[in-house]
């Protein structure tokens, strides 16, 4: 995405709180109608970035553009964005309808029209008839939806969401995730969504920016982030990952190889390797990309190992297999596709074969 197409353009933004650097030279482009997530652990700067988009924090350096307009002189109440706060920030002294209609005051609409819009919103969030109720008497999930409606009724160009589902229990959260996604598609507004829950980000987003220590590590689609992380940090932040030290072996021919601790020599097409012969790399393999078998498979690469521990998780199990040449055991994840697999944990020390295919590995720079 180029700067010309981007709807939200964040250019080289840094932010200091006193001596503390909360954001370092962050640049991002977000397209119109995208569901874009900022993902990272607490303190990585994602909320700071969101608040800078909303106008509650100023940038120490750099520029933010929304729909082509620079935002540095525009105070929050004049920006074409609206925010759903982490605590929902529902006005306790107003009822539901007045909360939703709060931002409409400046438009000086006739009362009938305002009521119509409020009713439309109530229907959208499935709270028809709740208009006269006191807003702070409702449950968390209901207040979250009111906060959403209150923002959406103003037809913002961008909706900012600050960990809106964090306070909800698991089932409600999963349901709200689907509702949010559907809502976004229906309304077509650009969503910028902040979360520390990687599953949530993977489920909802068109693209994700993984952040850490005030920097953006990688911006990609969920699938790309998961299957092709570019650094060890990104790789281990999202999902689980096995890492193997390796050395590049290429001699100019079409096929090169990586000598890997524990997995042996893995053949790789030379075109996929960008580092010279002898360079140190890390080979990363997701747990579900390994297959376990009792005997050596006929074709493909495999290595023998010993089962250390099993963790049973209901729909799948995690197996930890120790192999020669590697200190920590390899994490393998497999669905419990038929009965009997849960009994595997009683068979520790049993000899197993680990196999994988070449296109399941990711090559990263050595740490």
């Amino acid at each position, binding site marked *: 995405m180029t700067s010309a197409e981007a709807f939200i353009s964040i250019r080289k933004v840094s932010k200091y709180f006193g001596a503390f650097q909360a954001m370092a030279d962050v640049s991002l482009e977000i397209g119109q109608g995208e569901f874009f997530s900022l993902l990272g652990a607490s303190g990585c700067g994602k909320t700071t970035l969101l608040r800078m988009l*909303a*106008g*509650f924090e100023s940038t120490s350096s750099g520029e933010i553009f929304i729909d082509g307009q620079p935002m540095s002189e525009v*105070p*929050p*109440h*004049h920006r074409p*964005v*609206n*925010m759903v*706060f*982490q*605590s*929902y*920030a*529902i*006005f*306790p*002294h107003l009822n539901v309808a007045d909360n939703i209609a*709060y*931002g409409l*005051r*400046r438009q000086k609409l006739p009362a009938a029209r305002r009521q119509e819009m409020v009713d439309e919103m109530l229907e959208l969030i499935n709270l028809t008839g709740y208009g006269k109720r006191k807003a*702070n008497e409702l*449950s*968390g999930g209901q*207040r979250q939806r009111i*906060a959403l409606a*209150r*923002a959406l009724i*103003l037809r913002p160009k961008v909706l900012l969401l600050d960990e809106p589902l964090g*306070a909800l229990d698991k089932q409600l959260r999963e349901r709200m995730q689907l509702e949010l996604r559907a809502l976004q598609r229906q309304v077509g507004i650009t969503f910028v969504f902040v979360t520390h829950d990687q599953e949530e980000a993977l489920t909802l987003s068109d693209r994700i920016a993984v952040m850490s220590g005030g920097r953006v590590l990688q911006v990609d689609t969920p699938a790309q982030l998961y299957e092709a992380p570019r650094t060890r940090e990104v790789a281990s932040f999202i999902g689980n990952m096995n890492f193997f030290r390796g050395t590049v072996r290429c001699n100019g021919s079409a096929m090169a190889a990586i000598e890997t601790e524990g997995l042996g020599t893995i053949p790789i097409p030379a075109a996929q390797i960008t580092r010279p012969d002898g360079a140190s790399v890390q080979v990363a393999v997701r747990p579900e990309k390994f297959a376990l078998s009792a005997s050596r498979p006929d074709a493909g690469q495999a290595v023998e190992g010993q089962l250390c521990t099993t963790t049973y998780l209901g729909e799948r199990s995690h197996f930890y297999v120790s192999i020669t040449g590697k200190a920590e055991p390899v994490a393998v994840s497999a669905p419990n596709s038929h009965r009997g697999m849960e009994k595997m944990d009683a068979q520790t020390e049993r000899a197993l074969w680990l196999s994988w295919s070449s296109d399941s590995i990711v090559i990263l720079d050595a740490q």
Partner: protein
Amino acid sequence: MSTGSYIKRPNRALQVYAVLFLVVLYVPVLFIPLFSFNDAVHVRFPLQGFTMRWYSELWSRQALWNSLWNSVRVGLVVAVISTILGVLTARSITRYRLKGKGALVGFIMMPLVIPGIIFGVALLVLLSRMGVPLSLWTVGLGHLIICLPFAVATLLPRFEGFDPSIEEASADLGENGWWTFWRVTFPMALPGIVASLLLSFTISFDEFIMAFFLTGTDPTLPMYIWGQLRFPKEFPSVLAMASLILFVSFVLVFIAQWVGRMGLESQEKEGLQS
């Protein structure tokens, strides 16, 4: 309540103590209205019969009404000013990252821990050196100094429990600073504001220690009562006055506390629910 946890099981001795305590706390004060209806000049047992004459006699005392009016005027002005300043102070303490916050708050709360006489004396000296004559204004200034800590103490918890993102939400939805204050901050702080007004008024109305030093020719009501205390024959009338004052103070403070704490409780409830 008997199904409560072990730690909270009831304790008979303490319950009895608590009731006795309240009795001892209130009874001395309740003697005042009791004897104000007593048909005798001397305040002692046995009671001599019921009469309203001490009250009806109050009606004709011009000096009493004047001093009452003085106290009301001072009280109103002091209540409004101290509440406004209290709101500004509470807001600046809770909303902004200020260095030396603790010291500032301690400084403002100092009048609570310094003997009133010292304030009265110090202000008297200051005013006389500045050549300012003593009057109801000087009394008001003295009252303002001691009411401010109470106003701040009343308003601070209200503003502390205030979710900052609520004002941000209002800004986000298009309202500038002024409108945000009127549509969101003020209504939410209203119970605290009412409590502060009532409390400040009551404190000023009842205040005597500083008024003693700072009053000019117009006495406040407590000053008038003090003057009457020289004459034992006036005691029953003083009792009648006192009863009326006590009653009004009780009602005002009760409302102030009720309103003040109600608001706090609902604030806590919001915090729990989200």
